[in-house]
């Protein structure tokens, strides 16, 4: 995904449109903060999630965190490769390191999120 075409949350998730579905992952900033990622827990396909609901979990050597759904929708697919290669999140957070795809989304909620410029601005004000 091209970072300039994504929308961002203050919890450092990104979401982008890919055909009929919306792809979700964590940002480059988030993977840097976490360091070496060692474990990813993914949601079940078919689960209906609300906006900002805890949807996945991520652990690194030094920390653990939750991944929230940036917008409401239904889990259409998950990146099972992360179960054996969680380091893909570090290596390619906007590509191979995606977490899940959402269908039946509430696209209006995208307007609640930041674009790339606003997210960069947010990071500049919240460096930690």
């Amino acid at each position, binding site marked *: 995904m091209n970072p300039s075409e994504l929308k961002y949350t203050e919890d450092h998730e990104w979401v982008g449109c890919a055909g009929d579905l919306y792809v979700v992952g964590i940002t480059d900033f988030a993977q840097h903060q976490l*360091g*070496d990622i*060692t*474990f990813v*827990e993914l949601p079940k396909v078919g689960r209906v999630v609300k906006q900002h609901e805890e949807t996945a979990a991520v*652990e*690194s*050597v*030094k920390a*653990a965190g939750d991944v929230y759904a940036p917008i409401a929708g239904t889990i259409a697919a998950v990146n099972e490769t992360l179960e054996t290669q*969680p*380091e893909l999140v570090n290596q390619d957070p906007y590509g191979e390191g995606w977490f899940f795809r959402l269908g039946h989304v509430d696209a209006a909620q995208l307007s609640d999120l930041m674009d790339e410029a606003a997210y960069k601005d947010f990071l500049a004000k919240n460096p930690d």
Partner: protein
Amino acid sequence: MRQTPLYGEYAAHGGKAVDFHGWALPVQFTGIIQEHLHTRSKAGLFDCSHMGEFLLTGEAAIRGFDRMVFGDMISLKPGRCRYTGILNERAGIIDDCVGLKLSENELYVVTNAGPLEKVSAMILGACPGAVDLSDATAKLDVQGPLAREVLLSLGFDAIAPLAYWTGIRTRWRDAELLITRAGYTGELGYEIYMPNALAPELWRVLAAHPDVAPCGLGARDTLRTEMGYPLNGEDVTESITPLEAGMERFIAWDKDFIGKSILEEQRVRGCHSVLVAIRSASRQAPRHGFEVKHEGQVVGEVTSGTFGPSVGCGVGLARVPQAVAAPGTKLAAGPRDLVIEVAEMPVYTGGTCRRKF
């Protein structure tokens, strides 16, 4: 935050300092897993200058220290190191430490950064003429299967005969330093104690070696956790005794020391809880502070936990009752009942620390 003499060296290798017991120390340079695996396969370089060092000279000083610790520091032979600990009156561990007998008349003591202020006052109070060298001393650990070759190639000829848990006083570039063959990683390794002024030069020489990678606190923690080595302040605190911490083999029952009578009672009565190694069934890690459950009941607590890069699963230490302390016992940890089991110590068995030369 206090800085070690090597503070200025971190940035050149990508290290970013964080607060560790009031010291600005690097968590990582290139990445915790990479540094961990490099130490297991080649050699890692660790700045441990935050630790405490004391020189005790003369019989009165050594006797004074011997009364403070559960290990026998008097019969310790020159050239040998001994792992031990300083106890309070209730036999709780104030600090775990290492003594190196430099000569019949000199004991060098290495302590942790966390309780250093308290420990320094105790040692200086109990050991006549003891000198606290902590502020003047830098410590570099070189750890890994290639550590010996690296040091020999840089002119540290004196280390060639060192066996595990022995040490020597030597010189390098006109400065006096101490080197012990010890460590906190499970790998063949050496700990080098030197005057502050020499440390940046030695760091640069070591870091420039192609087999050496600078490593931060993160890798130090994953390496020691895979070995089941306790961390002062996390696994080992004043509320745990050496018997509960699994240190019975280091206790000298035939001498007197502070806290001994409590330990003797505990030895007869048995420990309620003990420190055990744990491993998870997945890549998911137990974490410090997680409750430990056995058959649904909370029975203990995880004191250390992380992902173990060399074992590929979560590893840690936990305090649990004797009844569920046998290796293989199935337990659950944390809010989501992570499946863990008591493991044989060490969890990582490929370490090279005992290699013979």
